């Protein structure tokens, strides 16, 4: 029988870097808490173990993770072709707004409204890519501008037409009866949106790994010159990829809206799109790891909220963790020498084995 041994190989280096990034970021934040908090013990306790304290909090972790799964998947598809299209933030928002508007105006069944939102998201994310293909404009800049347009247009649709005058805040009318996603467990707000999210994980995994479309898009991202020589219709493929990515973000927006709220309640961009970038990085651009990455971020979010309620540390501290993780996971220089050593060792071993 072959002896089982624990060894680090050079292909594990990326996971190792991810782990290191998370550890370093947490250490930085723990240090900050220790320095500035008057009761650091309580703050640390509620940040790390707070989310496990009650069923409702465990539920919130999952609730928080669901939109992050959608935007994480969206970012994976949007960036797969090598473009930095950041329109998922706006797509998430405006999809929720259009879906809410359609359901309030025409009382359509929920799936129809969600489909409309999804398609809106797709169209929004396709715009910067189409402009790139047709006019060679900078995707980054146009998609950033588009986010603001989505925000204001979405706000116009809701505030201009569906505002409930009976309440003081800028929320819409209540969604009609039966147009909310059914809840799955009592006490928590976990709903069928979670199942839709998991289905999307499978779909994106399938697209990326088992279809020629996914293979082509990956190839364009890795080597556009090669893809061109292979005769791929690059323009159509990248527009299609960003359309699908946008649809995922849009679906996420509608799921969040009909799963968690009874009225349209967004008053600012949700930031879920940006968080999707972190989720995609943590998941190493692989769909199957997205739920795990989203759960991790969701756990930290809930932990930070619990901490801000029970101690003197505001929950915004979490952005420090997020920034450090983004930088360190993508830091090629981190563990570079270790990787070299591992490569040398492994080649030596395989040579010795061949002799």
């Amino acid at each position: 029988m072959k002896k089982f041994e624990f060894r680090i190989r050079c292909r594990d280096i990326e996971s190792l870097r991810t782990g290191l990034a998370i550890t370093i970021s947490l250490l930085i934040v723990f240090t900050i808490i220790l320095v500035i908090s008057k009761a650091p013990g309580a703050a640390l306790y509620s940040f790390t173990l707070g989310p496990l304290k009650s069923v409702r909090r465990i539920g919130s972790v999952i609730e928080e993770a669901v939109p992050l799964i959608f935007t994480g998947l969206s970012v994976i598809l949007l960036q797969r072709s090598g473009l930095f299209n950041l329109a998922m933030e706006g797509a998430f928002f405006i999809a929720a707004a259009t879906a809410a508007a359609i359901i309030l105006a025409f009382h359509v069944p929920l799936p129809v409204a969600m489909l409309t939102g999804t398609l809106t998201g797709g169209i929004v994310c396709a715009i910067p890519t189409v402009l790139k293909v047709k006019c060679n404009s900078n995707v980054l800049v146009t998609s950033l501008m588009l986010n603001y347009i989505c925000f204001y247009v979405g706000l116009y649709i809701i505030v201009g037409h569906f505002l409930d005058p009976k309440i003081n805040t800028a929320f819409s009318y209540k969604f009609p009866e039966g147009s909310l996603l059914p809840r799955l467990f009592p006490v928590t707000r976990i709903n069928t949106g979670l199942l839709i999210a998991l289905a999307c994980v499978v779909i994106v995994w399938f697209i990326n790994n088992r279809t020629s479309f996914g293979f082509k898009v990956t190839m364009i991202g890795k080597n556009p010159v090669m893809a061109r020589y292979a005769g791929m219709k690059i323009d159509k493929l990248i527009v299609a990829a960003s359309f699908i990515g946008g649809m995922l973000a849009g679906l996420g927006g509608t799921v969040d809206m009909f799963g968690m709220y009874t009225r349209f309640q967004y008053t600012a961009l949700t930031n879920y799109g940006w968080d999707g970038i972190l989720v995609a990085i943590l998941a190493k651009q692989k769909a199957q790891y997205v739920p795990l990455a989203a759960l991790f971020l969701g756990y930290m979010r809930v932990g930070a909220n619990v901490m801000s309620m029970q101690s003197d540390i505001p929950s915004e501290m979490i952005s420090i963790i997020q920034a450090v993780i983004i930088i360190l996971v993508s830091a090629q220089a981190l563990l570079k020498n270790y990787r070299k050593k591992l490569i040398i060792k492994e080649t030596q071993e395989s040579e010795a084995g061949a002799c």
Partner: protein
Amino acid sequence: MLDFILSLLTPDYVFTVIRVMTPILFAGLSCMVFIKGGIDPIGIEGIMLLAAMSGSVGSYYTQSAFGGVCCAVLSGITISFIFGYATLQLQSVEILAGIAVNTLSAGLTIFIIYYVAGEKGSTQSLASPVVGSLTIPVLSGIPILGKMLSGHNMLTYIAFILMILLAYMFNRTPLGLRIRSVGENKAAAESVGINIMKYKYITLAIAGTLAGLGGAFMSMGYVSFFSKNMIAGRGWIGMAAEAMGRGNPFGICIASMLFGIADSLSVRLQLFNLPSQLVNTIPYVITIITISIYSYRDMMKKKRSNTK
């Protein structure tokens, strides 16, 4: 309608345009320096936000506007050095590191003002001195021109002076040429003995200073306090202005003036009972359209020169 058009021709309107375009001009110039040095400028939004916060808080602690501006500039340089360390030493992807800077600033600013001012929304409760305005002696005496050009915030004049200095620096001085050579062709620059790292950090320092001044203007000139998310995309509009001005300081100035016009137009159009949300999209729509037209023309030019 006629009244509306006439109201645009007043010196008052021109004054507003210049005031509104100032942060965008700073942002655009900062992006220009970033891009000339071969660095992606997406983090500018976060740099400006952090600088705006430090400006306001610094001005409160030192009780002087100059101290505030210094704090803003220093924090701008510091954060762009952190960005530089991440991309140059740790070799992170530039766009991701820039996004990280934005994420960090968005949270860190709220984190800090929560401790300084006791609330998460703004620093309105802190009495912080602001940068004063400047009345230019002879100019202010001229009837219409004086109303348009005199009496602006000092940082506005600094922006225009820096614009001219930068144009001179990049076209006429060895420093400017070296920064450009590092940005355009790193290998070639290295082969003639230019210290790449040194010039990358000089680029970061200059760009950080400009973004810092832009942030300082927001919290110490445009308004007199810091509020969360107060940059609201102005850094990114600066990126757009840079793209439209094609890396020429004067082009960037015209582009940011265009944004200034669009932005102050949207404020005035709201008087006409137009839905304010739709009017607010005007600057962003104009950005997308102009960038597309410009890029399209560039692409066609390239195609034509290739076929010749």
